């Protein structure tokens, strides 16, 4: 370990920042995010199967696995290897571009769908500290503004896909998506303002510190949470708001013309956005990496404690992902006008009222 310490000590502060950021980015994306995305898909398939009295994926297994006693068949039954096969399949499929597409945008759209989801992860504190390093990729003091800026970009991927595909179903999907995103973006923004009014800081780390001291925001701001949750469903295009995709009406919506890994990027982008939004909700409303007991609410002093913090954060995130998945099989799709109605006529007034009420309460409390 000495040579590592020496190496790190030999670098300038800027170089150290670059090195650690790179390490954190690589670890967060390839060791955490993408596996979670892959296995969320599996969980989705399994949960949907159980809800519909089906069996779910239970066949895929590498050839040698059946020779393992007990564990092998069990893993196969749980479908543990299914995501590997799915990924492999996506890579092996023909990357087909129909002749009528607008090529540049057609190639650009999947990237634009995936990248914002990954960028959002950057400001979410996924643990307290590992050694001296804060467990957040970019400790921005305008964290939430950055998030909303990036999340707004995710609509471009979908709208561009709808435009580039140059055929009717993707086009309808793209149009629906843009209308939906615009109406829920505002509601989402309004819903979190009370949280930051209480904290007095836009840094997400500060939000977690506040919650560690005073309790989770879901207790103080349940209306904010409810609004943020609904808006999150709309932002990630999940049922009951999966208007852009709505496979029973628009074939597959914006990604109808896509195949192979380009489709895979949309697919992973959707789930990565779910993970990002879940992480954001955990940070804003469920106390981030803290737990109010076992002394888990203080920044970590040992390696074990920091691992526990990361575990707590991931656990909470997975819980919310399960909520996303469950709701998909629970609620029917909203009609387009109902969706608009809910966004513009209910949530925006509600969000504004929420802000005013919170401001009044804060004013009264501070006066005493």
């Amino acid at each position, binding site marked *: 370990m000495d040579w590592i310490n020496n190496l790190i000590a030999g670098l300038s502060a800027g170089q150290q920042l670059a090195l650690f950021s790179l390490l954190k980015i690589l670890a967060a994306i390839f060791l955490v995010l993408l596996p979670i995305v892959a296995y969320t898909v599996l969980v989705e398939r399994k*949960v949907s*199967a*159980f*809800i*519909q*009295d*089906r*069996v779910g994926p239970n066949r895929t297994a590498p050839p040698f696995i059946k020779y393992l006693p007990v564990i092998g068949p069990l893993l196969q*039954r749980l479908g543990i290897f299914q995501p590997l096969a799915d990924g492999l399949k996506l890579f092996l499929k023909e990357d087909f571009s129909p002749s009528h597409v607008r090529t540049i945008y057609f190639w650009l759209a999947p990237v634009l769908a995936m990248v914002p989801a990954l960028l959002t992860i950057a400001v979410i504190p996924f643990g307290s500290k590992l050694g001296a390093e804060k467990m957040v990729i970019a400790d921005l003091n305008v964290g939430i503004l950055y998030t909303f800026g990036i999340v707004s970009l995710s609509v471009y991927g979908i709208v561009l896909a709808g435009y580039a595909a140059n055929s009717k179903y993707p086009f309808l999907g793209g149009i629906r998506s843009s209308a939906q995103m615009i109406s829920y973006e505002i509601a989402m923004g309004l819903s979190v303002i009370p949280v930051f009014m209480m904290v007095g800081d836009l840094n997400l780390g500060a939000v977690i510190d506040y919650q560690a001291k005073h309790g989770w925001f879901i207790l103080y701001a349940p209306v904010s949470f409810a609004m943020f949750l609904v808006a999150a469903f709309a932002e990630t295009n999940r049922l009951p708001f999966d208007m852009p995709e709505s496979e029973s009406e628009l074939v597959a919506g914006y990604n109808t013309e896509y195949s192979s890994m380009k489709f895979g990027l949309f697919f992973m982008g959707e789930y990565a956005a779910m993970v990002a939004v879940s992480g954001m909700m955990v940070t804003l409303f469920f106390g981030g990496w803290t737990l109010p007991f076992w002394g888990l609410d203080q920044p970590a002093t040992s390696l074990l404690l920091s691992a526990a913090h990361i575990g707590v954060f991931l656990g909470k995130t997975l819980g919310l992902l399960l909520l996303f998945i*469950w709701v998909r*099989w*629970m*609620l029917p799709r909203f009609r387009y006008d109902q969706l608009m109605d809910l966004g513009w006529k209910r949530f925006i007034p509600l969000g504004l009222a929420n802000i005013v009420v919170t401001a009044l309460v804060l004013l009264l409390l501070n006066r005493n």
Partner: protein
Amino acid sequence: MGKIVERANLRWFERLYLPAIWSGFKVTARHFFSWKRSEVYGKEQAGFELKATMQYPEERWTVPTGYRGAPYLVSDQDGHTKCVSCQLCEFVCPPKAIKIIPPGPAGKSADRPNAEKMPAEFEINMLRCIFCGLCQEVCPEEAIFLQKDYSLTGTTRAELIYDKEKLLALGGTHGGIQKWKHKLDEAKEQETFPLKD
């Protein structure tokens, strides 16, 4: 003529979507926690409710009587080939899936008494067969029947051309009339029939 759909007038509470969400949750949770089992994995536990999925290779349909599966040749009660190589089925077969080579004048005689001949070769190309049942209908000897097999698999095309031995082995025994045996018995009774057996 449009039909006007009556929309229920919702109360304010219902318009919050909450009752609908709650009942949706109840339904999904009931199914999720019903712990139904699939037949394949649940053999050891009795009395479980079954999942909707039928896991195909292990679980299969109960095929109803009269089902038209693959046509196979059948043997009689004594284990003899019933087919007499008349080639009616070959002639009637719409997709020309059946190929029969009769024994010819110098060929092997039938494996049972008093029957004139049996096919030297009898092949059904299962890739061509459409399971129509005309061969069964046309057969004067009740020697070919559509049976209950519906999932014929093979890794090569040649594997799916079934020859006489395979067809007989798969077909099993079929009772019913034994026309030639009865004729022999009659002949013996009359003691006029020249055939000695």
